[in-house]
């Protein structure tokens, strides 16, 4: 293994940032990009990578993973080692995972637990979102501590999973308000949990117990309704909103409309919603259908992936995650007789970059610069770590991917690095694969394979008040103060309400 001080020189590649691309060499020293320019000199100790004809892009940032996540009675099989290893193999050099405290649990305790799980295992840098699953004064004050001292600038609220993770509207309002006060971004899993609970009962009663019931119990309008509600609450609290896993056309439309009205809303489609559809829930093979179970579900409207990609390309949706939360066949089988017991989650952390390249760039919907924006730069801005991450520039972290747009790879569970035995993108041919992946200055993937060290990744604190969200919010706070009209007091007649609720005339 090369030592930390090794110099690395990437020669002849085309550097692609979100705003421009140009051909130049990149010199990496001590885990940081130290120089960019034409014909950089080669000193003896520098390892040289020839990147002629390749793209040099910032390493991907996966905004949404659930590694090693205890959920529905079991734990997702990709832990912080295999998950981050798979991420690196696919060209993602940073993940943002979720701390999910159980109801009643201290957020700080849960946060520490997650840090202890992750720190010894992670192979790439990571940050954490914290979920708010219940509400109390304690939660409120812990949110402030997390934002101020613990490097958390985003809190996620569930509007689904009734009785376990779901927050009621009033608690949502408080959580949004507090997020805003501490300079964090409010994230929502937008699905109407109460409707889903009823729908599940109906379907089970009707004898629909297979994975197709999962889709039918969570229709598109249920996602759209919750998205609209979240937007309304965000508007009323003047809090920046981040809708995680936008899965449907109608939810995406709402996010896009809200922005046109000027709200600060970010929409995150995931690799799964951009790469495949809900037709799989009707597959005859139970394992195949169950392998696609996630919430919100993939949509059976087959135009959805293309539509979401169009919106991602046009700037109506902004960044991409994966919701990577993988379960093996035997775990999925917990729900073999009842779809509502199938652990929710699919893979993607390794496949995201290639899937978006294939569905976005190869189809001509977005250019390479926009690809960089949606896979890393915008995420880095929203989580306030730009340009440390998300840009190939002097002084940025040496998280760099040398992308080969001319090679292809066929995604398959047999060859992927994710720990699970199933891949929702099975058989998809992607034109565009990572050639070299460099994380913090270390080559972790080259044409010979993946070489990673558990625990070599670091926790990246996300500072509050991200400019991309909060500079507008703060200005609006100054403008939108409640207005009061000074009036003469009313002196005419007025009725008063007696204790026994009878109205009667009363002279002043």
């Amino acid at each position: 293994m090369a030592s930390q001080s090794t110099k690395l020189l990437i020669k002849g590649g085309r550097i692609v940032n979100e705003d421009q691309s140009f051909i130049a060499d990149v010199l990496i020293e001590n885990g940081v990009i130290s120089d960019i320019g034409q014909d950089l000199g080669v000193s003896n100790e520098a390892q040289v990578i020839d990147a002629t004809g390749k793209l040099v892009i910032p390493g991907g940032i996966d905004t949404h993973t659930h590694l090693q996540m205890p959920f529905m009675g079991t734990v997702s099989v990709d832990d912080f080692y295999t998950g981050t290893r798979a991420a690196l193999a696919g060209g993602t050099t940073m993940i943002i995972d979720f701390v999910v405290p159980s109801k009643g649990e201290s957020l700080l305790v849960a946060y520490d637990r997650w840090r202890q799980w992750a720190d010894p295992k992670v192979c790439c840098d990571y940050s954490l979102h914290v979920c708010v699953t219940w509400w109390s004064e304690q939660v409120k004050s812990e949110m402030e501590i997390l934002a101020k001292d613990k490097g958390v600038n985003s809190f996620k609220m569930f509007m689904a999973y009734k009785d376990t993770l779901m927050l009621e509207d009033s608690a949502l309002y408080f959580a949004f308000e507090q997020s805003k006060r501490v300079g964090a971004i409010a994230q929502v899993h937008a699905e109407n949990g109460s409707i889903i609970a009823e729908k599940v009962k109906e379907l089970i009663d009707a004898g629909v117990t297979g994975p197709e019931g999962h889709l039918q119990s969570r229709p598109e309008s249920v996602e759209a309704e919750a998205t609209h509600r979240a937007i309304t609450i965000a508007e009323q609290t003047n809090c920046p909103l981040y809708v995680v896993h936008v899965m449907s056309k109608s939810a995406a439309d709402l996010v896009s409309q809200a922005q046109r009205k000027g709200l600060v809303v970010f929409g995150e489609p995931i690799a799964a919603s951009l790469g495949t559809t809900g037709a799989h829930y009707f597959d005859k093979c139970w394992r195949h259908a169950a392998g696609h179970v996630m919430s919100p579900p993939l949509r059976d409207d087959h135009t959805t992936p293309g539509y979401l990609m169009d919106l991602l390309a046009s700037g109506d949706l902004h960044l991409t995650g994966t919701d990577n939360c993988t379960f093996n066949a035997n775990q999925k089988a917990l729900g073999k007789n009842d779809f509502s017991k199938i652990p929710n989650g699919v893979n993607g952390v390794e496949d995201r970059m290639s899937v978006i390249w294939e569905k976005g760039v190869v189809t001509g919907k977005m250019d390479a610069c926009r690809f960089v924006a949606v896979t890393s730069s915008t995420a880095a801005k929203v989580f306030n770590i730009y340009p440390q991450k998300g840009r190939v520039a002097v002084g940025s972290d040496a998280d760099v991917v040398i992308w080969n747009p001319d090679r292809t790879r066929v995604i398959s569970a047999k060859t992927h690095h994710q720990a699970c035995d199933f891949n929702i993108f099975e058989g998809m041919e992607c034109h565009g694969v990572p050639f070299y992946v460099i994380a913090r200055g270390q080559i972790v993937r080259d044409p010979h394979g993946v070489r990673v060290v558990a625990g070599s990744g670091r926790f990246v604190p996300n500072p509050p008040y991200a400019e991309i969200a909060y500079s507008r919010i703060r200005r609006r706070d100054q403008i939108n103060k409640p207005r009061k009209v000074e009036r003469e007091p009313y002196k005419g007649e007025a009725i008063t309400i007696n204790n026994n609720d009878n109205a009667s005339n009363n002279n002043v």
Partner: protein
Amino acid sequence: MASARTPLKKVPIHLQSAQLRVFIKGGRIVNDDQSFTADVYIEDGVIKQIGNNLVVPGGSRIIEAKGKFIIPGGLDTCTHFEQTCYGTVSPDDFYSGTRAAIAGGTTTVIDFVVPEVNQSLLDAYKRCRESADAKVCCDYLLQVCLTDWNDKVSQEMEVLVKDNGINSFHVFMANVGDQRAFPESVMYQVLKRCRQLGALLTVHAENGCLIEEKTKEVISHGIAGPEGHVLSRPEEAEAEAVYRAIALASMVNAPVYISKVMSRMSADVIHEQRRKGKVVFGEVIPAALAADGSQYFNRSWRHAAGFVMSPPLRLDSTTPEYLTDLLANDDLQVTGSDHCTFDANQKAIGKDDFRKIPVGANGTEDRLSVVWEKSVVSGKMDINRFVAVTSATAAKIFNVYPRKGRIAVGSDADVVIWDPNSTRTISASSQQQKTDFNIFEGLTCRGAPSVVINGGCVSVDEDGLHVTQGGGRFIPAVSGSEFVYGRIREREKLNKPSRVVREPYSGPALSYTSNGTLESVKVVSPLPGTEKGEEFHNRVTRSGGRNLQDSSFSLSGAQIDDNVPQRAGMKVSQPPGGKSSSIW
């Protein structure tokens, strides 16, 4: 001679004039992607260093920028200096116009070459360059207006793109002032040519026919004042043309740029089409962000006429706010001023007929402050987005990024130190623009440039405005901007017409006789030489036999049946002679 030059080089740097070395301390640098606090050092017209604790040569001019923003100088995508309209010339020429631009924080403008009817594009370009080069105070780019389409135009477009630094062409879809509407039927060819050349077509989108009819109606109602201008150019005429332009462009797989989006309807069209993946860009002018069409109904003729521009400001009073929202949200991308001023006496050409009022209003000086006031102060966009809409995105579209539109090492030293705490009230009495009217009269803007550095020289400071006539340069724009053409090129590879290989149809088919009437059913044999297929072959010889000597091959590709309307086949449900549905 040689000895005369040498001493110049020997002067130590700290003794040379400090005019070209500027050190900006303590400001917050704002680019379209991020902002951070750092010092900037400028030398010889280029940004040389950015960072903290910079080592700079002695004798540099030090400018304190604490509490202020350091932003890239504005790029005004649309100015019409020295424009002729109804025989009168706009008083703002390339000198006074660019001077006013600099005063307002704009350091690059894009002007238009307007050829006269039947004039060579190259001649018009050269004349425009001559006039501009001698006068401009800041850097400029040019777009070339197209007025007609023929082979010569097509060739000249190539010369302009390849050798003359032009990467965009402009067409008018309706008559505006002296500009005649571009023939609609050849828009397709122009877009195709632009795609081949990697150039961008910018369009003035209004439906000319609709406007013509509406104008007649308005006149017939006896309306001759400026309100007739807005009544005769409805929102629908604009939105329809925008839609048509985008549709044509997407058919050709070419990008298109809509100049001057003035209405909610057309903004919505652009937004919808962008969501569908069309490569279209929308430009908003500050007038549309700050004023609405009620101005045309002002009792003062001079006031109302001052607002006459095309497309006009809209009667819907929510338009400015809506356009600002969409601009903040990247549904619209850039701002240009459409600066084209006329004095009262010039506007008065149309005092009895709104159709003769010279079209245009001011804006190049006011653009940055107005956009700031309407969008940043109102909390609709952040400062990074402000930089994007006033310079960075335009620089990307016209392919001069990051030379323009970014504060970065190696970029041109076009830098504005923006003071968000100063206020400036716009007024015709205090403006640099050379006209007696200002459409933003009385608008107080809470944000103004305190220092403007233009090409490395301090052009605006506390002592006022210092510019040099002819000090600006023409910036050649390279074709094939990645921002515009990246996706187009990828799609070219994909969208080839697909063809299905089929057995030739050999069943019964109707055909037209040469006089256009339908012939009765007959079987067209696929084999040549049979008596039924005789019209495909040479005429019979004089003696009545088959002509086997002359070739039916023609160099021009003409076919013997060219006079017969093409028709692949026709389904007939009730054929003459009765229907037959069974095999006999």
